[in-house]
């Protein structure tokens, strides 16, 4: 920008210097006349007359300095614009086609750029890694306190390591408190990320000592909303979970957590080494590190291996040792691991769409160049060099592409808004996607590439010596480039269609996957008790009892249940399988993975419609007894009792001699997402006096009423019990829908692009065939005059289209097959060679091709020999 101004100023300065030179000439001439005795006024007039027009002279001087290529460019552009204006239909079609291609690719780029290419908002972000164990419970690597302490002390590959507790929440302020995301991080957390607070001070190592006064860093949004962005607010005290906490500083506006979680409050972690190292007690952490220069995630992982193996031996329970692995991966991979494939698929799909659009426009340009053959031959004969003509054709396609690109940016803007509205949580960072300079630059690059792609082929083909030499318009229909372009379009479009139909089928399978429970008409209300106010099991039990009493009384609630977690998205508690013992049975095998469990009230199975397949449901009376019963899920029952009736067996869950009877078996439910198999689980009854219920619970209300109506009732009742308790209310169906949101988003987008692609390919086929028919009208007329029937003529045209389509489809299938391995990862229970999907894609394509070929073929059949032979 600055350079542009300097350049402009110099340009302007140069121009005024030339003007001054001419003025000085006039002045000197006037001086000379005056010296000859002419009056001053007359002298000036005479000087001006003798000089002629100073403006024309100045213009001539400017022309001397203007670069010759600029002149030619202006001329080409002028000519190009005239050509474009002369055939508005053609130009509009070409621009619209390019606008669709460039627009779609730009919109998708603005989304995937954030995920795949743009650097993360940390200095030297490429050196940041996430470190930990991969395990069966968590999709992301985690760490345990004692292992982390060992690694931090002994590792040599990282410049710094830091840790945080898994994301939590806390109550901010006086009642009614605000429930805000609240994360405990090590004191070097910001420093390791390479950041510093926007105001105030970062955590000190002293803040991390257990028992030190609590300090917090607040998010930029909090700073603005609570303190009006006052930089002097650091040092003030806020109320967090009813305890005073000093605010040490405020996070930068662009701050984001390395795992992309939410955080309005960062608290010093105060990891207590004596607690972290206590036997039979596990502190779960997320750990991040900054690589030393020269190290990569791979070398770091290798060098960390001895430490890792040592930790596994010492801290991981034997049954789980084989199920954990070491992970060191870049922060970007950590952030996008489950959408990386989707991002690349989307990006690939739109690039294919751009290619299709270019092929289409190139085809149009070829057709038009053929029509302008006479003009080009004439200009060549008049002395225009081939380079000059090529440059001119290229200028035309450049103008078209830039116009298409500009329209595409508008289209992209709209499409992006639609994408964000369609699925706000389908991709991380989707809501951050903007049409910024970088994205516009991408659009420009695509436009230029389109200009080259659409301009070069016609220029090259039309400017061959033979084409320029020819004056006649007959013949020359056998050029290979147009059929090849059409076949390529068919191929690309088949790949897109195949991908779309596979994804749609996979989505259909995913959504028709049995959940094992009935989400309709169920409203959930989730809450977490304040740790300080409900600091004893008695207080918690009393609260839960009151919640059951009050919520069950809401009019219109037919069934009510309370649980500590609900399907289908995980979050339940788990234990190693091998920890369980069955009365009168040998110990269970060591490798059994984890078993999930929940604490539920007797109404749970009925509220969610989970069938009891053997034995019986829990009974309300059992809640006051001591004989705490169990219900197993079907898959767990099958594993523990392959050949026996599970009902009536007694199980010790925690190796503590407390034997509990199995009273029933419940159907399996999807408890860790739609795509994964159900985890084996057991249900424990929420007895009246329990010290194990925990601080979090979810109430389930089955009701025919609208969720909004129920929500008001629930809020009122909950507020009557504890006005300071934040409650999250949501329809169960919404939770379930969210699970397939990403798959739906991907399938919808690819299907949309496939539809665009199909349209473009059909237009391409139609265009080429129409052109050929028009060009061969004379030949067709002769054939008809010699006795060919209209049917034969139509068959001839269709035959040609059929050959191109088949060639394209063969290429498309080959391309699809080569993409099979990539596609496999994005599909759920559908093979990349799923015959139904392939057939549907092929059928749709063939139908579109037939439609595109039919119109020109009919026109060919209706050629009147008398008219066509009289032409020319």
């Amino acid at each position: 920008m600055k350079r542009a101004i300097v350049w402009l100023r110099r340009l302007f300065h140069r121009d005024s210097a030339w003007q001054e030179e001419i003025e000085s000439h006039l002045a000197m001439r006037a001086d000379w006349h005056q010296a000859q005795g002419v009056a001053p006024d007359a002298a000036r007039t005479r000087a001006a007359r003798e000089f002629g027009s100073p403006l024309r002279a100045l213009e001539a001087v400017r022309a001397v300095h203007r670069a010759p290529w600029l002149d030619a460019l202006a001329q080409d552009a002028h000519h190009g614009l005239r050509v474009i204006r002369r055939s508005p239909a053609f130009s509009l079609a070409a621009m619209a086609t390019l606008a669709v291609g460039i627009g779609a690719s730009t919109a998708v780029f603005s989304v995937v750029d954030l995920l795949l290419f743009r650097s993360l908002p940390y200095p030297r972000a490429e050196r940041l890694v996430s470190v930990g164990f991969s395990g069966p419970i968590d999709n992301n690597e985690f760490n345990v306190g004692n292992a982390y302490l060992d690694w931090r002390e002994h590792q040599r590959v990282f410049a710094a390591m830091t840790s945080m507790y898994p994301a939590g929440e806390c109550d901010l302020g006086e009642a009614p408190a605000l429930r805000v995301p609240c994360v405990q991080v090590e004191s070097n957390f910001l420093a390791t990320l390479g950041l510093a607070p926007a105001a105030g001070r970062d955590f000190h190592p002293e803040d991390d000592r257990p028992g030190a006064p609590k300090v917090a860093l607040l998010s930029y949004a909090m700073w603005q909303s609570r303190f009006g962005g006052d930089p002097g607010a650091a040092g003030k005290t806020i109320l967090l979970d009813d305890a005073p906490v000093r605010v040490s500083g405020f996070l930068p506006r662009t701050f984001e957590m390395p795992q992309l979680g939410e955080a309005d409050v960062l608290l010093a972690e105060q990891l207590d080494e004596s607690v972290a190292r206590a036997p039979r007690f596990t502190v779960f952490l997320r750990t991040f590190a900054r690589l030393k220069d020269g190290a990569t995630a791979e070398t770091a992982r290798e060098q960390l291996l001895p430490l890792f193996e040592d930790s596994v031996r010492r801290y991981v329970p034997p049954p789980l040792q084989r199920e954990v692995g070491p992970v060191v991966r870049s922060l970007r991979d950590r952030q996008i691991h489950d959408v990386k494939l989707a991002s690349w698929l989307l990006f690939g799909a739109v690039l294919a769409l751009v290619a299709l659009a270019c092929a289409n426009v190139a085809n149009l340009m070829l057709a038009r160049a053929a029509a302008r053959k006479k003009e080009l031959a004439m200009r060549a004969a008049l002395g225009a060099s081939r380079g000059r003509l090529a440059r001119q054709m290229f200028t035309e396609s450049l103008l078209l592409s830039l116009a298409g690109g500009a329209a595409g940016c508008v289209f992209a803007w709209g499409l992006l808004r639609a994408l964000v509205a369609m699925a706000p949580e389908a991709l991380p960072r989707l809501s951050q996607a903007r049409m910024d300079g970088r994205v516009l630059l991408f659009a420009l690059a695509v436009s230029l590439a389109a200009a080259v792609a659409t301009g070069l082929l016609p220029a090259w083909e039309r400017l061959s010596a033979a084409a320029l030499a020819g004056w006649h318009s007959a013949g020359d229909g056998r050029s290979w480039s147009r059929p090849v372009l059409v076949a390529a379009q068919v191929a690309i479009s088949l790949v897109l269609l195949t991908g779309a139909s596979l994804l749609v089928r996979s989505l259909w399978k995913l959504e028709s996957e049995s959940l094992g429970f009935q989400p309709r008409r169920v409203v959930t209300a989730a809450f977490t008790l304040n740790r300080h106010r409900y600091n004893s099991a008695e207080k918690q039990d009393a609260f839960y009892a009151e919640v059951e009493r009050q919520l069950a009384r809401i009019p219109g609630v037919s069934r009510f249940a309370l649980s500590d977690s609900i399907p289908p998205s995980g979050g339940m508690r788990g234990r190693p399988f091998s920890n369980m013992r069955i009365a009168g049975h040998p110990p269970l095998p060591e490798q059994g993975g984890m078993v999930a469990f929940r604490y539920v009230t007797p109404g749970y199975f009925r509220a969610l419609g989970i069938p009891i397949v053997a034995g019986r449901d829990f009974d309300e009376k059992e809640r006051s007894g001591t004989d705490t019963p169990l219900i197993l899920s079907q898959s767990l029952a099958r594993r523990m009792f392959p050949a026996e009736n599970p009902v009536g067996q007694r199980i010790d869950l925690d190796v503590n001699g407390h034997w509990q009877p199995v009273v029933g078996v419940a159907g399996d439910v999807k408890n860790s997402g739609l795509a994964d198999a159900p985890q084996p689980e057991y249900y424990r009854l929420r007895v009246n006096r329990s010290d194990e219920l925990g601080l979090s619970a979810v109430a389930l209300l089955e009701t025919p009423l609208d969720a909004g109506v129920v929500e008001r009732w629930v809020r009122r009742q909950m507020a009557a019990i504890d006005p300071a308790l934040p409650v999250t209310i949501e329809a169960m169906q919404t939770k379930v829908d969210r699970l397939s949101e990403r798959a739906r988003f991907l399938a919808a987008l690819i299907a949309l692009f496939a539809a665009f692609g199909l349209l473009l390919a059909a237009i391409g086929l139609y265009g080429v065939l129409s052109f050929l028919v028009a060009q061969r009208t004379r030949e067709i007329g002769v054939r008809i005059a010699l006795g060919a029937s209209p049917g034969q003529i139509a068959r001839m045209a269709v035959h040609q289209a059929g050959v191109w389509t088949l060639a394209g489809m063969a290429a498309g299938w080959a391309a699809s097959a080569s993409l099979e391995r990539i596609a496999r990862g994005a599909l759920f229970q559908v093979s990349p060679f799923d015959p139904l999907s392939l057939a549907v894609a092929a059928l749709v394509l063939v139908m579109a091709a037939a439609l595109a070929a039919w119109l020109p073929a009919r026109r060919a059949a209706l050629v009147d020999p008398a008219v066509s032979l009289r032409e020319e």
Partner: protein
Amino acid sequence: MKSTDRLFGSLELLIFKTLAAGPHHGFGITLHVETVSKGLLHMEEGSLYPALHRLERERLISGEWRQTDAGRRARIYTLTAAGRKRLAESEASWSSVSLGIERVLRFV
């Protein structure tokens, strides 16, 4: 206005020849040609400047803003080494052309 300056690149030749005698500004060149040709040649002033700029771009002459003796700012042009060489070539070709024309004119 005479068309003499259009003939055979004569404008360039006149500029070179004038500058060979010493640096001049545009008006100085005009005046020199008028004076030396005793009024027979009159330069078209409008086309003088484009020519000067073109020759400068070709590095045959070089220009520089300076103060004239009369106290006016003007752009003073000097013949470069390349310009001197070109002058010799142009002079030679001009001589042969004018000799040729003279012979044709004198042929009766």
